[in-house]
């Protein structure tokens, strides 16, 4: 027994030594790789400001960056129009993340285990590619175009808009037209998490248990429409109101011809040495169809009828305590029973099954960051969604309830105005209650986790 213990200790010591040696080698590599790059991030290159000027840690904006964005990608120093730029300047940046990724699903029905088994996959991978081209077409006319590919190279337009800034010489009047991210100040698009489970905010995409409507709305999805927005000169107070097509940002009007509304208001105040604190509220009110005209039995895209409503409301805060910040969000969601109890009707108005109700739920998210220095930031996020009323009396009270924990670290070996490079590590764990298994026809609690390590770069 004693010999076994010594042997174990020696193996453990050997393992630790090898880890440390590997760590030191990688550390040396990282230090050596901290060299200036000729690759250029578009705005940093245009204005000669380091990434850290606009970002707490890119892509997360600080208040200066938010003001720059709200001004229509302008610093407002009469050098914003492209006529002032060196003719060789081209406002394009590319972002992609080569990574190693491990994904585990706690209960997957397989031929070998019909009642479910834990399945783990892992390997080297690529994220999608974002081609970010943005800036000004002229003074007070700004644009953003983001052709974006998934990891297979299939492209779509993530964003494409033109914005008329400072109408009537007022920062309170700005009009944006096209496809754009909703004015989510706790922005999923600018999140510091990348993994399959941790890379999205659960509450921005949640749909109630049993909802199989082909219309799958997500407040985190970019939408198409017009946005009227305004802000004070220092951006402390800001608002936005959007009129959007009820198509979840998809082109060619696949669902219906109705419109949604999105509204955001926030105000910030100084808390002395703690920094700037912001509180706000947002709401999204929308409609979605419940049946379609058909041809040969198939739904005709864009002919959605029988619209019923859904809504998302939230209050949020961005609270800074020196190097530590916390962004809590409390939200509520609800949908029409017709949307949540969707049954394909072959072109006829749906009839609700017995026991159908309007589902509603509350959600809570808190994301916190600790900025050790502008080059190293750690993130922790907790997501929780709890149903307050199920879409059917037949469903368990907690069906669909979701909790997620994500922790991530990002290190930027260099930080200047030519390119961005981050080493990213992340772990995320997600639990969902009563997931329906099509194999067994039963409800099962399922957990998922992701381990992710990548090199996130933009140039």
């Amino acid at each position, binding site marked *: 027994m004693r010999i076994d213990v010594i042997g174990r200790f020696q193996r453990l010591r050997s393992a630790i030594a090898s880890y440390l040696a590997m760590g030191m080698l990688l550390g040396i590599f990282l230090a050596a790789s901290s060299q200036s790059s000729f690759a250029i991030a578009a705005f940093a290159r245009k204005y000669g*400001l380091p990434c850290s000027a606009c970002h707490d840690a890119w892509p997360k904006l600080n208040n200066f960056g938010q003001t720059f964005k709200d001004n229509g990608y302008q610093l407002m120093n009469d050098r914003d129009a492209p006529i002032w730029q060196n003719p060789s300047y081209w406002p394009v940046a590319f972002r992609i993340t080569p990574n190693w990724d491990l994904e585990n699903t706690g209960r997957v029905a397989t031929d070998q285990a019909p009642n479910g088994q834990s399945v783990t996959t892992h390997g080297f991978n690529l994220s999608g590619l974002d081609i970010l081209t943005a800036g000004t077409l002229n003074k007070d006319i700004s644009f953003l175009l983001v052709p974006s590919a998934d990891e297979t190279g299939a492209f779509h337009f993530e964003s494409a808009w033109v914005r008329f800034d400072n109408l009537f010489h007022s920062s309170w009047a700005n009009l944006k037209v096209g496809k754009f991210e909703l004015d989510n100040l706790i922005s999923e698009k600018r999140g510091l998490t990348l993994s399959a489970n941790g890379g999205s905010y659960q509450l921005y995409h949640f749909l109630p248990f049993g909802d199989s409507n082909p219309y799958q709305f997500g407040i985190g999805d970019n939408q198409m429409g017009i946005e009227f927005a305004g802000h004070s000169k220092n951006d402390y107070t800001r608002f936005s109101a959007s009129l959007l097509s009820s198509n979840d940002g998809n082109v060619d009007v696949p669902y219906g011809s109705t419109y949604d509304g999105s509204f955001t208001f926030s105000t910030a105040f100084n808390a002395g040495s703690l920094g700037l604190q912001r509180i706000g509220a947002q709401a999204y009110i929308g409609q979605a169809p419940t049946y379609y005209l058909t041809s040969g039995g198939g739904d005709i895209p864009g002919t959605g009828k029988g619209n019923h409503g859904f809504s998302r409301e939230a209050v949020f805060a961005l609270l800074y305590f020196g190097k530590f910040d916390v962004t809590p969000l409390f939200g509520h969601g609800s949908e029409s029973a017709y949307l949540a109890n969707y049954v394909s009707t072959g072109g006829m108005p749906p009839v609700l099954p017995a026991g159908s109700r309007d589902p509603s739920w509350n959600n809570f998210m808190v994301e916190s960051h600790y900025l050790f220095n502008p080059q190293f930031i750690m993130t922790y996020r907790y997501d929780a969604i709890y149903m307050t009323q199920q879409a059917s009396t037949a469903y368990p009270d907690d069906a669909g309830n979701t909790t997620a924990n994500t922790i991530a670290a990002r290190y930027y070996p260099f930080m200047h105005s030519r390119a961005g490079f981050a080493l990213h590590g992340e772990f995320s764990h997600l639990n969902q209650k009563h997931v329906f298994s099509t194999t067994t026809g039963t409800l099962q609690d399922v957990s998922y986790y992701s381990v992710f390590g990548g090199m996130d770069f933009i140039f």
Partner: protein
Amino acid sequence: MNAITKTLVSMSFSLAIAIAVPALAQEPPGSGMPQPIPQTPATHDFTSHIGKVTGHADHGKQDYRRWCVGCHGPYGDGNGENAPWIDPKPRDFTAATFKCRSTPTGTLPTDDDLFNAITRGFNTSNMPQWRPLTPQTRADLIAYVKTFSPRWKSEKPGTPITITPETPVTIDSIARGKALFVKLECWKCHGPLGRSDGPSAATLTDSKDQPIKPYNFSTGGRLKCGEANADIYRDFMTGLDGTPMPSFADNVKPEEAWDLVHFLRTLQTTRPSKENEVLKAAGGKIPDVPPPAAPAQENNQAPQQEQKSPSSGK
């Protein structure tokens, strides 16, 4: 987990160590290139006072590295990594020479002057308006900027000049201002119509021998040191140190300075102003022979400025 998975997780753990060790030991970012650590004076010796806000250089150092170092450089000498690509060049803080001051030429500016400069930014340059930064952050930055020059240790800021009350805007005042514009030879640099095309314009250099252009009034763009008439008045009387624009405090009486301000506003043809309204009402023509000016009232009260200190609220 199988053996391969364990190995890969171990590698991830090692990578995390590799990231964390240099990251936690990291100095805040400089230019992105390996550089020696700047030898600046002890930062705790430097503070700034903006209204009720006290800035501390210790805090400002971090902020400077985040927002300013790319242009002004880790040594504050204006040689940041972006300096080669920037025109006009970034300010060299080691010389403690500042354009926009309320203090006489050759003296150090007040903390409020620097606060207003950071807040306002500099039009037609790469220096943006830093209004989104909290007053505390801006005050901290001012305190840190002082660490770059020994002048802040040995000298006190100058006493702000007195700005007399503005005289009425009349066509006669504009005419007197035009005569003064000719007499003082402002046109040699700014051009007869204020279009930055005077005979000397192409030859001008700043105190670091960098080419510099005089302000082009015809664009109507924001003036560097503030938008109000009082700000233009102050520019004459203090001069823009480090540039060819001298102080006229010894050559121009206060009432004459206001006449000059009124005339210069008419050169901003694209910008609505009371002066342009007066000129339009007079048929758009400035009389050639102006009447003498009435003596100005003595007044030690400076008019309210557009820029406000934090103590004065939003």
